[in-house]
């Protein structure tokens, strides 16, 4: 005890001080302030007072004409947007700039819109897009109300070229327009692929429901959370809305056009702990902060068109008990999943695209929008993705994908009415102006859907060992050294053997010493 006190000032206290630093020091705090959020748009004009909106509209186009009488600069402005054109200038992988979009790019849900416009345009901000003859230059064809309806009474009729349901009171909705609400956006963006949450998986119409959308579902959109509107992040100027989807539009970190990013509000040093901010350049915010998606409703993860068609001349329909597997003659096999873990990929924001002209190698699974970037690419980060897998028809002779007509009346060649693959492909390809050899088969495809919504509260974010462990979520992303996950087995074994030999040597030597002592050997 005396020795202990004697050694206190020269040995123990200095050592305790050193370790107090080692355990206590967390690094210099470098968090940046969060900038204040964009204010919600407010309704500051009472449109019900305008005489122009009280007269009877024979067609929806007349309603639009009335809107544009006052908003006389908005027509040309809207006609330049991707919402209207379903095309935007895009450079695939940073190469030549083309006009790409829903009009010509293929996916592995319903494949494409060519020859199916009458159905697909239920989500177009226009009236009357039923086929190629649609006049994109007529501003009266713009559907203002679909984005500015504040009544909830406006609905487009399914399969009717974007026209509203006949029972919609056009005067009522026109007199009650206002800023875009979450409902306006989600009516299309949550329902892509033919149903709620089917396509993206992170966009669910029930995210607008105050009770269902808890903070755990989406911290930004929850009424108990930040209570943000879509347009508070997807900031809009002259009807150009920030936040283009990468399925149909690519971008680079240095040529970032039209993106909505986390850092606009949160900065690139949002964490108190520097060790977390250090991840900024290699790990996207979404990767840790969206540990799961499809939190409310299921999303589709697999679509096999090859099982579609008649069985023994009869149409069929099977739905599994839990609703997670659907099979029918019109669509083939569909698998759904809920509360999914994203898959993780290096990505620099650039994607490729696939059109009817793209030559493919059908022996391998084809990435419809291949992601560019890898660990060695300084612009790349790890992003979370929903990966949609499926099988879709391709021309076995031309080695291109094919477009089939799905939607149409009986006898038109539409697959969903006639269940005739050859006829539907022949119609679709001729319509789109691409050759079809008459021979087709089904190829495996993948498409990548970045998961950006359904951000979880901070306490539910991934933790270190979710990635930094051998069984972590990045187990498949193995093109780089990740501490805690990767070891060099040979060096590790040599090192362990060295330690083992040292220990064995010590045991043998000490045993011999003890034996020698017992014997009293001199």
């Amino acid at each position, binding site marked *: 005890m005396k*020795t202990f006190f004697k050694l206190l000032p020269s040995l123990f206290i200095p050592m305790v001080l050193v370790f107090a630093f080692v355990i206590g020091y967390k690094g210099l705090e470098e968090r940046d302030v969060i900038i204040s959020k964009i204010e919600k748009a407010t309704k500051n004009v009472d449109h019900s007072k305008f005489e122009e909106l009280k007269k009877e509209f024979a067609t929806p186009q007349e309603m639009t004409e009335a809107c544009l009488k006052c908003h006389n600069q908005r027509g040309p402005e809207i006609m330049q947007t991707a919402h209207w054109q379903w095309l935007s200038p895009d450079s695939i992988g940073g190469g030549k700039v083309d006009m790409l979009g829903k009009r010509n790019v293929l996916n592995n849900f319903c494949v494409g819109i060519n020859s199916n416009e009458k159905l697909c345009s239920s989500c177009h901000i226009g009236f009357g897009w039923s086929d190629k003859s649609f006049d994109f230059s007529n501003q009266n064809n713009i559907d203002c109300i679909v984005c500015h309806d504040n009544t909830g009474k406006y609905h487009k009729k399914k399969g009717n070229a974007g026209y509203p349901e006949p029972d919609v009171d056009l005067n009522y909705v026109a007199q009650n327009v206002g800023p875009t609400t979450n409902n306006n956006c989600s009516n299309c963006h949550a329902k892509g692929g033919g149903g709620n949450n089917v396509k993206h998986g992170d966009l669910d119409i029930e995210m607008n429901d105050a009770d269902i959308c808890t903070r755990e579902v989406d911290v930004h959109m929850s009424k108990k959370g930040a209570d943000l509107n879509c347009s508070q992040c997807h900031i809009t100027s002259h009807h150009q809305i920030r936040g283009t989807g990468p399925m149909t539009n690519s971008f680079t970190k240095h040529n970032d056009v039209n993106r909505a990013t986390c850092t606009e509000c949160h900065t690139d040093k949002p964490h108190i702990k520097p060790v977390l901010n*250090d991840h900024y350049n290699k790990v996207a915010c979404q990767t840790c902060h969206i540990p799961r998606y499809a939190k409310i409703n299921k999303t589709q993860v697999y679509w096999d068109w090859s099982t579609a068609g008649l069985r023994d001349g009869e149409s069929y329909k099977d739905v599994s008990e839990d609703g997670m597997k659907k099979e029918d003659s019109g669509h083939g096999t569909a698998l759904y999943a809920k509360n999914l873990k994203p898959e993780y990929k290096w990505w620099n924001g650039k994607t490729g695209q696939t059109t009817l002209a793209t030559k493919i190698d059908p022996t391998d699974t084809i990435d419809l929008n291949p992601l560019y970037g890898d660990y060695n690419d*300084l612009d790349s980060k790890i992003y979370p993705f929903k990966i949609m897998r499926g099988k879709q028809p391709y021309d076995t002779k031309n080695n291109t994908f094919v477009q089939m007509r799905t939607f149409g009346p009986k006898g038109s060649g539409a697959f969903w009415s006639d269940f005739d693959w050859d006829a539907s492909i022949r119609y679709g390809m001729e319509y789109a102006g691409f050759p079809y050899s008459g021979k087709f088969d089904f190829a495996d495809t993948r498409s990548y859907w970045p998961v950006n919504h359904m951000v979880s509260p901070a306490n539910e974010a991934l933790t270190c*060992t979710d990635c930094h462990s051998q069984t972590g979520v990045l187990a498949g992303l193995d093109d*780089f050294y990740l*501490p*805690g996950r990767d070891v060099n087995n040979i060096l590790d074994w040599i090192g362990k053997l060295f*330690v083992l030999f040292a220990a064995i040597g010590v045991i043998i030597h000490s045993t011999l010493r003890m034996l*020698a002592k017992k014997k009293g050997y001199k």
Partner: protein
Amino acid sequence: MKKVYIYNKYNRFWHWTQAALILFLALTGLEVHGTMQIFGYENAVIYHNNAAWSLIVLIVFTIFWDFTIGEWKQYIPTLKLMTDQINYYITGIFKKAPHPTHKTKYTKFNPLQRMTYLGLKMLIIPVMITSGLLYFYFFSNINNGTPLSLDWIAHLHTFGAFILVGFVIVHVYLTTTGHTVTSSIKAMITGWEEMSDEDAKYAIEEGLQVKLNEMKAELKTAQKDELLDNALKHVEEIFGFTHDFSLKKAVDKTGIGYFRINKDGRYEEVNDGWLNMYKCTAIEDVLNKPIALNRDREDIDIVENIFKRVMKGETIQSGEVKRVCKTGEIGYHTFTASPVRDSEGIIVGIEGFIIDTTQQHKIN
């Protein structure tokens, strides 16, 4: 059994802090490596970095300190007794043979330790620090955005860690090979090591010898004069007299020569005045030479006759002799000669003064 002071406070502070930091680095490092879970991954990363920086500061300061204090000499590698040390661990230790080397404050390490610790200081630890810094601040400091791959630097760092763990195991075990099983560890804590009487004697003797040498080394400097002056003063105080140098100064000034010859007739001492007269440059030319040196042949008998007379007890108050200088010149001087007696009164030699008279001879 005796206790000898081996490790000073800084030795011990440095050793235990470094040991604790390295063990802590191993634990947190293995957690980052994915081998075990103790602190939580995030804490393991933060602690590992903090401990690494603490260790770097400690090591840099200790190296500075080693050079300042001269402690670096402990690490000079040597092959002397290396085989004895190895043989001791292989066979001697089982036969209770004595340690082939002695542990003292000034040579703490045996040849094996010197080699091992120098290897640690010059190779393993620098490699670990360099690879660790590269790991965190260059390759994986992910803000850096470097396209270089992290794996090889991480593998090197991990491998070095295994080497260090192996070292620690053997190092801890070898502490039990001291005089008793715990004597080395106790010494590293308290500074005092238990050892056999023989080893302790050696260590203490070496300690005294080193101190003595240090004091001697100090005396070569200006302190020497000061010390002698003080001693003289001390003697004066004790014996109550003041020494007067005026006689010596007068002798030096007038150039009178002094000589002392032993009973064999050989020069035992001469002063500068004597050397000047005989045109000698160094006293070695004269010392232990017979008195027949520097004489003409016919004068030798005269000189030897005078020597014999004085050795019999006679004192010659004045005489004159001819001398042959080293350069061959002839000179003359008068001299006195009286017997030198030891403490018992027995005549052991003769001594006297000489005054040059060559000028008078030339005039005459």
